[in-house]
Structures are given as C-alpha cells and as structure tokens.
C-alpha cells in the first residue's frame, strides 16, 4: 500500500514519492496533469512510457496494481496501432474504458478534497469530553431479536451451495464422555459387557467413542478386554488395583 520514496538512479532530479499516489489511477492522473494533455484524447503511447518509467523504480512485490495498469496501457497502445476501416461507425476507441475510469477517479479525488476539508472543519469543534459512567454500570444493551437471527439464518440458507444441503458433517467423537462413563461403570462393577459400556440407542459416533476410550483405558491398564471367541461379546474387566508406589 505504501511505498518508499524512490529516486531516479540517473539522478535526473526525478523524484517520485509513491506515498503521494494512492494507486495507478492517481499516478496516471498525475502524469496527465503534468503533461497538460487532454484526458479525453489521451496520448497513450507517451503516457505508457512515462508510467512504465515510474513503476520501473518500484519493487515488483508492491506494485501488482501498477503492473496491471502498465499491462493495460500497453494493450491499449497496441490496439491503437491496429488499422481501422474508414467510416467504420462500429469502431470503439480502445482508450474509452480507461478514460471513463480516469474521469470517474478524478471525480473521486475531488470528493476526497471536499470530504477532507469537511473533516478538518468539523475537527475544529469539540463535543462533550466527559462521559458519565453508566449508572449501574450495565454495558449498553445488546440488541438482537429473534427475527434478526432468523433473517440471518435465511440468508445463510440461501448461500449454502446445493451439494452442501445433504452433506453430513460428522459429529465429533466424545472420547472424554465415554471414558467418564466407563470409569463410572468400573467403579460400580468388576466386569460388564460391551453393550453396557456403549449404552442404549448408541449411534455410530458413540460406538467409536466408546471403543477408543476402552482401548485407551486398557493401554493404561485400568481394565482388560476379553472375548471368549472370535466375534463373541466383549467383556470388560476391572484391572486389579496396583500397589501403591
């Protein structure tokens, strides 16, 4: 956004303070004003050369917007060189779009001056400096009503891309919850079955959470897992208490 002050390496006295320019359009306007050329009949070749000379002094990394404009200028310059048929009403001046943007931008710059002046004038007046502390110090009430929230929800729905409508986002596993549940069972009973561990109406997520919790607890030697036969019901047994260290 901001750029350092650049000095022409040839020392030709050409100093461009890039902070002065808020973008490539601003720089273009500056060149146009300096050359006192007609903005609606832009000498594109000349301006392009000048523009390139200036941005040549810029680091590329900070000049993407300027480079884009340089490319545009060169393209317009090339288009201007194309032959056009006499009396061709359809011919559109390749500079038209750029000129439109420059005029528009010039208008913005004028508004900037107006706004800047208005802000300066306003800054000469002070409002009340002292703000009384709120009586019981409740912060300003936050206003949300249900309609606002539902309106927002509807906007969100409108935004959801089609394929997302049925996308199932997995609920995160709750290993901590499962571990707590198993520890409670261990405290109550020496052995219990897998179906007791996982609980009634278990979802896939519950099953996975419980399974991971069991493995973790087995690793920590809090319990042992056993099956009497392959695919048989799993039995969870409390591990014998360890000797105190």
């Amino acid at each position: 956004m901001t750029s350092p002050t650049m000095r022409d390496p040839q020392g030709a006295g050409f100093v461009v303070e890039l902070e002065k320019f808020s973008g490539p359009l601003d720089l273009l306007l500056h060149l146009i004003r300096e050359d006192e050329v007609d903005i609606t009949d832009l000498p594109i070749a000349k301006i392009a050369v000048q523009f390139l000379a200036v941005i040549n002094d810029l680091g590329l990394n900070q000049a993407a917007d300027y480079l884009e404009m340089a490319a545009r200028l060169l393209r317009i310059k090339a288009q201007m060189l194309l032959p056009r048929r006499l009396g061709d009403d359809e011919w559109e001046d390749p500079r038209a779009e750029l000129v439109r943007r420059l005029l528009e931008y010039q208008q913005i710059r004028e508004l900037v001056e107006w706004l800047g002046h208005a802000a300066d004038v306003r800054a000469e007046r002070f409002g009340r400096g002292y703000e009384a502390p709120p009586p019981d110090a409740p912060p300003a009430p936050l206003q949300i009503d249900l309609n606002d929230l539902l309106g927002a929800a509807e906007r969100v729905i409108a935004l959801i891309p089609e394929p997302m409508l049925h996308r199932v986002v997995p609920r995160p596993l709750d290993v901590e919850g499962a571990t707590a549940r198993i520890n409670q069972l261990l405290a109550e009973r020496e052995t219990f079955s897998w179906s007791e561990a996982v609980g009634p109406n278990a979802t896939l997520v519950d099953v996975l959470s419980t399974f991971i919790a069991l493995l973790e607890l087995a690793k920590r030697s809090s319990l042992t897992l056993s099956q009497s036969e392959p695919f048989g019901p799993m039995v969870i047994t409390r591990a014998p208490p360890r000797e105190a260290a």
Partner: protein
Amino acid sequence: MHPLAKLLEAALFAASRPLTLEELSSLAPGENIQPALDEVRALYQGDHGVELVEIAEGWQFLTRREYAETIERAQFALRPRRLSPAALETLAIIAYRQPVGRLEVDEIRGVDSGAVMDKLVERGLIEVVTRGEGLGRPLLYGTTPSFLEILGLKDLEDLPRLEELSVALRRPMPADEPE
C-alpha cells in the same frame, strides 16, 4: 427556560454524540419538543462558547470553532486523527455508491481496498448494510451516522452533488448506461 428546554439542555450536554429528534422526544413522551429545542438552540446561538449544532441527523453541543486551538494546545481535548487519502477515497466511493461491494470499490480506486475498508468498519464509519445479488452474494457497505458526525454533515444530502463538481460526469454506473 421552559422546564422541557432545561431537560433537553441537560440531555444534550450529557451525551457525547448527536441525539436524534426521536431520542430527544423519548425524554418527554407525548410532548412536542420542537419549541423547547428551538429555545435551547436560540439561547446558545448567541453569546456562548458552545453552540447547538444540527449534525448526523441529530443535535449536538459543540464548542465554537475559534476556541479549538487554545483548547487543543492546553491538551484538554484532542482533535481526531486525520483520515488517510486512501480512507477518504474509499469513503467517498462508498458514500456516493452505497450500498456498494468491495469489488466495485477496488475497481474504482484501481487498488485493493480490503484493508482500508476493514479499518473503516472498525472505526465505525462504514458498515455492511446488505448483501448483493449474484455470485457469492457479496457484502454491500454503506456509511454510518459516525461518518456524518466526523464530517459535520446533517445528512447525506449535505454531500456535494456530483453535478456540482468541476469534473461533471454522468453517473458512471455501467448498469445505468443504455445498451
């Protein structure tokens, strides 16, 4: 002073921002506050260091201009930071084009304006007012009452008309142009 005028005076003094007619009216439900407001205004229009100013669709007591420097020098109050040219450019575009999306601002300025717009949102000078149609339903921005406040404007009508600018130009919205 009329009792209601004194109440308004107190309320306007206490607030550190402009109060709208509606807000002032809520102090005395069912009463017409206009005469009382006029009374306060007339009183301070005269021989006072502060005056009642119509600003940001409301009313606010402000110090008279001639004391600004002295008060600032004594460091009793600070002038607000000046807005950068980039911020003013962005504000100008948003003020005139609102509601307007970031891409359009970028296009008019010829540079990426995201960071500047974020700052302006942070300072409460612009806000998202709606979403546009079309791809991605872009957020559209408009100016806030604080924008009017820092510029000392009564309302958006106080902004110069585009026709009044020396670079007179038809409204440049491409969408408005006939095919």
